[in-house]
């Protein structure tokens, strides 16, 4: 079994807690190389039996026919899980994997600075939110900003696009739809955050220590995921521990969406014993195992009921994640998506720097997306 990051580290403990679990040879992979590795192994016919995959990889893995669909007897296991997350595991209507843990992004905020600016919690509409950011920025003092949006990360623009209701690609994923009014609105809003001095124009590698800067008040809103909870607790000074909170994202006219992230368990084609592999997968996502994984790694369980059992609904920090996950919307499910979104961010970067107007930018994004999707169009036409 191949697993990544913290999950790989804690798998032995997790398996030990499950009575009757089969012997599993675990190979840990670093997240940064896992995607490459999977594809190289596919080419070399050396995939494992069962593995952890990011749930944005399903389109690719299905396109190359590397994974088995979930057998009928296990499909009921996803009932009661966050629908948007389950949707990411579904390709062409077939369920291809079992969600193992979920995550999404939301705002980590300096609640003390928001309070000083007159807000008990960040507003839920873009207009009011931006106004709040301006107030927080002035409260934080000169030389500081309000929100950290690293210019090289595409997650922030896609989150705003989803909140605005943009689909970014057309219905069957064959052409870009960045020129649609919803995405334009999102891009314009994204750009305005930089233009109005609310976000510093910097890439993630240029912020040497996010925690120091957050503590300093250099920015008061830090969009990130559940992995940051542990970091906040361990890296922020003790006197700041009651001064930060989480809140769901705003949207143009009401609460906003985010991407349903997380990892799923899949069984690869060519596994020695698919039945045993699926049985193991089913065991690993049983509610008890989900709770155990949550305890070991802090990962959020995919089944709603487990949240109540593990107290995640009571903790205000994690409760916001549950709320945000209910509002998540899936991203387009085409294998080329990662490339497309990388190009999108490259153009967005230049737009923020003033080298593209909004009009020209969305047209350029469409152009690049269309080019990347050309093969997919050809294949779909052939199949028709």
């Amino acid at each position, binding site marked *: 079994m191949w697993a990544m990051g913290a999950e790989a580290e804690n798998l032995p403990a997790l398996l030990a807690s499950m009575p009757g679990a089969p012997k599993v040879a675990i190979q840990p992979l670093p997240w940064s190389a896992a995607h*490459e590795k999977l594809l190289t192994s596919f080419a070399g016919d050396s995939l494992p039996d069962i593995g952890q995959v990011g749930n944005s990889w399903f389109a690719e893995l299905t*396109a*190359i026919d590397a994974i088995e669909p979930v057998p009928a007897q296990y499909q009921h296991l996803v009932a009661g899980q966050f629908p948007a997350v389950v949707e990411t595991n579904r390709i062409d209507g077939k369920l291809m994997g079992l969600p193992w843990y979920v995550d999404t992004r939301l705002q980590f905020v300096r609640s003390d600075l928001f309070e000083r600016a007159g807000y008990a919690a960040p507003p839920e509409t873009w207009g009011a939110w931006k106004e709040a950011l301006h107030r927080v920025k002035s409260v934080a003092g000169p030389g500081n900003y309000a929100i950290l949006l690293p210019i090289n990360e595409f997650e922030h623009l896609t989150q705003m696009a989803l909140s605005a209701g943009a689909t970014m690609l057309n219905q069957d994923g064959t052409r870009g739809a960045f020129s649609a009014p919803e995405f334009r609105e999102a891009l314009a809003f994204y750009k305005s955050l930089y233009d109005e001095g609310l976000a510093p124009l910097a890439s993630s590698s240029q912020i040497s220590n996010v925690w120091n800067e957050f503590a300093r008040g250099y920015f008061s809103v830090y969009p990130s995921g559940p992995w940051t909870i542990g970091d906040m607790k361990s890296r922020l000074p003790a006197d700041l521990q009651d001064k930060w909170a989480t809140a769901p994202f705003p949207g143009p006219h009401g609460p906003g969406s985010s991407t349903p992230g997380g990892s799923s368990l899949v069984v690869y084609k060519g596994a020695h014993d698919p039945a045993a592999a699926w049985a193991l997968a089913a065991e690993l996502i049983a509610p008890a195992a989900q709770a155990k994984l949550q305890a070991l790694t802090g990962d959020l369980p995919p089944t709603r009921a487990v949240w109540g059992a593990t107290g995640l609904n009571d903790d205000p920090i994690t409760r916001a994640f549950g709320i945000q996950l209910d509002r998540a919307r899936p991203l387009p499910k085409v294998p080329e998506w990662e490339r497309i979104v990388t190009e999108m961010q490259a153009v967005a970067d230049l737009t923020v720097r003033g080298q593209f107007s909004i009009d020209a930018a969305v047209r350029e994004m469409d152009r690049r997306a269309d*080019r990347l999707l050309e093969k997919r169009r*050809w294949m779909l036409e052939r199949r028709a």
Partner: protein
Amino acid sequence: MREAAVRAEARAGWAMTAPALTAIGLFFVVPAFASLILSFTDFDIYALADLNNLRFIGFENYRNLLGNPLFWRAMGNTLWFVVLGVPLIVGLSLAAALLVHARTLKWRAAWRVALFAPFVTTLVATAVVWNYLLHTRYGLINYGLSFLGIAPVDWLGNPRTALPAILLFVAWKSFGYNMIIFLASLQMVSKDLLDAARVDGAGPWMRFRHVVLPSIAPTVLLVAILTVAGMFQLFAEPYVMTQGGPAKSTVTVLYFMFEEGFKWWNLGSGAAVAFILFLCILAVTLVQLKLARRGGAI
């Protein structure tokens, strides 16, 4: 009798070269040509799954590459490596060779070994070491610079300094090999000519310029060509130290090819990059040879 001996010799000749030639043919020539053919297809992940999804697209890959800003960035970065690196490395190795070759030097063998040692070390291992040497806060290099009153430099985090930082590492790693080549060449410089120049009152710099340099000029050219080819093939350094960043300032052509081929699975496009790489090296080599011929060096 003679006939049989000649035939036996010829048979032996073929038999002895056959294994090597087969290996070269199978594992070098065939892939090289296949690369050319592959570059005219759109081999990608769909084709990997099912060969029926392969299409011949002529020069489309090349056209797309030429229109890809990241490709040009990679070319630009590689050219910077060449422009900055070749003089640096050639100069360093020549200086080192002159030092080790000097008449009054004691324990020559020891210095030879010491200066050659970095070349022998594993690239990945030493890249990891240099990663820490170049660390902004805890690295030895910034520590050393602090004695000169220079503020700590974010070597690998600043797009403008990342490339020179890697170049420094590459120079440290590879100058030893060129030093050996220069040493061999320096030993061939005519002693009589040197003695005559010394008798005539020429100082060390004059002797270098007028006797040594013309004599080793072909070697300088050889080392320059080898170094240029080496600069075009930098991969492990950006892979280990910067992953092509920051802001794509250390993406080299080979790194771009690796990502194109093994991250995005556009094997057709990757093959096109490989072929362009080959043409570049060839072009630069030919230009250098022509310049040298014109300059009378060879």
